[in-house]
């Protein structure tokens, strides 16, 4: 872990130093360009586009439930140990989720802290335009390195899934570590789907920062081990990013049914209703002890007699592509 961190830091420092020095070189005359500007969040990318070139954008909504509603007071950006973010700049729309690994609770570490920090930093990096719109892995890596620079020690681990829509080329680039994931639906069919990354059953790939001295004992994957995919999108595509609370409880055909209904939907209210129903569906199924959920099915494949849903935090980020 240490060596991969070295490598990542070197990569980042070189990249950022060169970009930072070009930012500093835009001197007094001539307004400095937009590169260093912290642009506000904008939904429409239409301004300044070349004539005839479609500028896609996401119409996105979020919904979710914490596993234990009583213990976790609602805080924006988190559902229990899960966390999510959405941000946009002139050149890209970015969304992501992260699922904190609950095992840290027994060591006195709050699992939600790591995932929340990861997502907040990604958001800040996007807003400062400190990222490459084609490489979501770099975004995750920068965010991970920022963790080291915090005065307050942050420990724990989480999975992560980040998705960037590049407005110029109308392509989506994704990076996924662990068992969160995304699904893309077009004309009633799943066209892209992420793969779950697991070391063993119920032990996903995870970015982690262990307590000092425990490094070798802790599972820690570097951002480079993320699964990346890039694909073009068309107007009306439905993209769902969710943590494993959804994928483990809602069977795929049911999800497909729900998602095909909102294809091409641009009204955020209707989209929100669908997201709500999907999250509620996941929650109800997770608390059902008889239903054969995808989690139960995969447990059986691993010779574990399981039945019913898997109670877990649920985060649903639902978006449609509008051109």
């Amino acid at each position, binding site marked *: 872990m240490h060596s991969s961190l*070295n490598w990542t830091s070197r990569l980042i*420092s070189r990249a950022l130093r060169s970009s930072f020095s070009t930012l500093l070189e835009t001197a007094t005359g001539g307004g400095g360009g937009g590169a260093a500007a912290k642009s506000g*969040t904008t939904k429409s990318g239409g301004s300044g586009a070349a004539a005839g070139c479609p500028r896609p954008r996401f119409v996105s909504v979020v919904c979710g439930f914490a596993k234990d509603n009583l213990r976790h007071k609602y805080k924006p950006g988190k559902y229990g140990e899960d966390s999510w973010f959405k941000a946009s700049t002139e050149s890209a729309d970015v969304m992501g989720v992260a699922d904190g690994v609950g095992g840290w609770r027994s060591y006195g570490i709050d699992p939600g802290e790591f995932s929340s920090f990861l997502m907040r930093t990604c958001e800040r990096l996007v807003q*400062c335009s400190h990222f490459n719109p084609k490489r979501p892995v770099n975004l995750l890596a920068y965010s991970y390195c920022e963790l080291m620079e915090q005065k307050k020690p942050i420990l724990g681990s989480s999975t992560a899934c980040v998705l960037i829509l590049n407005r110029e080329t109308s392509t989506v680039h994704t990076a996924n570590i662990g068992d969160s994931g995304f699904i893309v639906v077009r004309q009633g069919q799943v066209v892209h789907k992420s793969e779950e990354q697991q070391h063993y059953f119920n032990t996903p790939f995870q970015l982690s920062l262990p307590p000092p001295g425990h490094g070798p004992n802790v599972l820690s994957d570097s951002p480079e081990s993320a699964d990346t995919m890039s694909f073009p999108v068309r107007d009306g595509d439905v993209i769902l990013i969710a943590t494993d609370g959804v994928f483990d409880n809602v069977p795929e055909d049911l999800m497909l049914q729900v998602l095909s209904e909102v294809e091409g939907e641009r009204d955020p209210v209707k989209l929100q209703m669908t997201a709500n129903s999907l999250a509620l569906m996941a929650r109800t199924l997770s608390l059902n002890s008889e239903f054969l959920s995808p989690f139960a099915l995969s447990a059986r494949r691993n010779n574990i007699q399981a039945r019913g849903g898997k109670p877990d935090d649920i985060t649903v980020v639902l978006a449609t592509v509008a051109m």
Partner: protein
Amino acid sequence: MSLLAYAEDRDPGESSDTEAEPDALVDFTAMLRQRQREYGGWFGCGSKMQAEQSDQGYYLEQYVLGVLDFSSQYGIDYSISYTAANVIGRPTKFPAYGDYPETFPMVSRSGPCPTPFPFNSRPQRTYGDWWQRAPSATREIQAQNLPKLTTHDYIVVYFEEFVVPTEVAIFETFNPGSVVRIWAYGLTKHWTCLWEATESDLARPALDSRRFAPALKKTTMITKTLRIDFNHSRLNYYTEIDAIMLCGRTVSKTQSLLGKQQKRMQQQTQRQVLASPPAEASDPPATDGSGGPISYKLRTLKFQPNCHEDGATKLHDFINNDLSQFLMDNSVKGGGDLGPPHPLPPPPPPQVCLTDLPFEILLRILSYLDLKSLFRVGQVSRTFYDISTHPLLYAELSLKPYWHVASSELLCTLARRATMLRKLDLSWCGGLGNVSPTEFKKFLTQRGDNLTHLRLNSCKFLNASCIENVGIVCDNLIELSLRNCATDPPLLNFSCLANLKNLERLDLFQTAFETELLLSMLEGNRKLKHLNLAFCGVSVNMDNVAAHLATYNTQLISLDLWKAHFLSARGLQSLARLHQLEELDLGWCLREASLGDGLFQLLTNCPKLKKLFLSAVRGTTERDLMHIAALGKNLEQLDLMGILNITHERAYDILVHCPKLQLLDLSFCDNIMDRDFDLLAEWSRQFNVDIKSSRRY
């Protein structure tokens, strides 16, 4: 991530979050309204245009678009936590108060002259005067040049639109009260000081976030680049800045606007002059008791000047003939009693003038003058010109306080005078192209061979050939300071600097360099006493450097490795071989690695250690803390920020067993909770130690 941004992201038609509690929303909007009333609406998006449209252009409030330069920052430059880039844009954390990574704190080491006194963000490591008490403290060159409130750090920012500045607001979110000067860069390529702090301005403000907007000098200059100067000697802890706002009127046509304003100002002054004289003559003099003995005397005598037509002549007559008599008649000693009139005026004293003094005495007198006054004195007469250009007065030269007027011509002039130059400080000069590298090289070639101290911090004109010149010409250098020269690729060509063999102090704070070349320099300078490698970047193998130091530079007294990543336990063990070490700063080194017994060896073998900074060295265990208590007999300053395993017992242990301890930093140590603030205050009093801790604000 503040609730602020969340509110602004919401479009009215979209409810992105159905789980939002309605109570939280209501409170927030109420707070917004209240703040708007207080601060007049700085929550606007980006550049806000107010409705005041006169023929003079719009009134515009804008936030920083980019950072041109800064002297130091807490975070490392590829990060966005605690770095200067956080000043850009709208404030993210204000009005919250606390130590947040989304702000800009500063970390300068440029210590001031010792004055009697006790982020982020870009946090200043010179809060209070702790750095002047450390073994690595330096003395300012030509200290008489410095103003009363010296500048420790600065930041240069630029905005989007040119405006005539009416207000500059600085949003401080942690330990406010460090801003001392605000400069603006005009179209004429000159810097103007818009505001300067007085002693009373720096009286410690309340510990709360504040929007600091001092009254600026009235000006008609047009600017979009500002420089803010900071002084941290009064602060309790680091200061952090969240954002800077520039308010002013935009200009549609520069010339016509300036013309209009000038005309209007002339008219105003004329009206004032005409209005006042008649009023003065008719009013009786004020009896409010203000003024000195002469005014008091005039009042008791009911002396009233009458302005008649020939009033001027009468006044002249009075002054020439009767004034001396008047003064003698009414002697102005004490309470104004009329003393006995002197019969004769005292005889005039013998005529001795300043130039009758011996040359050496005059030289000594003039040596107390700052550079600006020295140049002015030279304009008085030929004699004074000869004295003021004597080379002994230019043995120490510092252009740092004159950074805004330093130019190639000034260097040329100084080159003629400074034939005995020993110490040179050109820090902060040359920004925006005022000093050319060629001129500097010429200066150095002419005058640099006897230089012992050279400081070129944040010099923008430095390029590789300048450094080469330094290496070739200045081989008598004892101190070389090249802070803040970070470029990519690193411009420091150490093979030339390897010519320097007598260095005792080398300061490479925030400067990039190649490891192998530094190593060759270390080998050459066996007498090295003070070394600063803070922020040297990720490409340096610190373990190799530590091994080299242990072999070749055993006389090292102070070593600063702040944020030097990739130092491991092996490096720490090498450092334990430096027995003369008195000051060691290992902040943010060693990352997550465990220290092994490196710290124990260090403490055993370096008994003279006075200052030890272990900020965020997360691998420090409880055993290490016990060792610190047992072996740190001479410790005066100890920083344990962000270390996980600190408990009350360990902290108490350290306080009891380190009798000379003066500063103990326990911020972000989660085990020492906020509720124990009183306990810490109690210990602070009992052991007479300044204890810093994180309060939850």
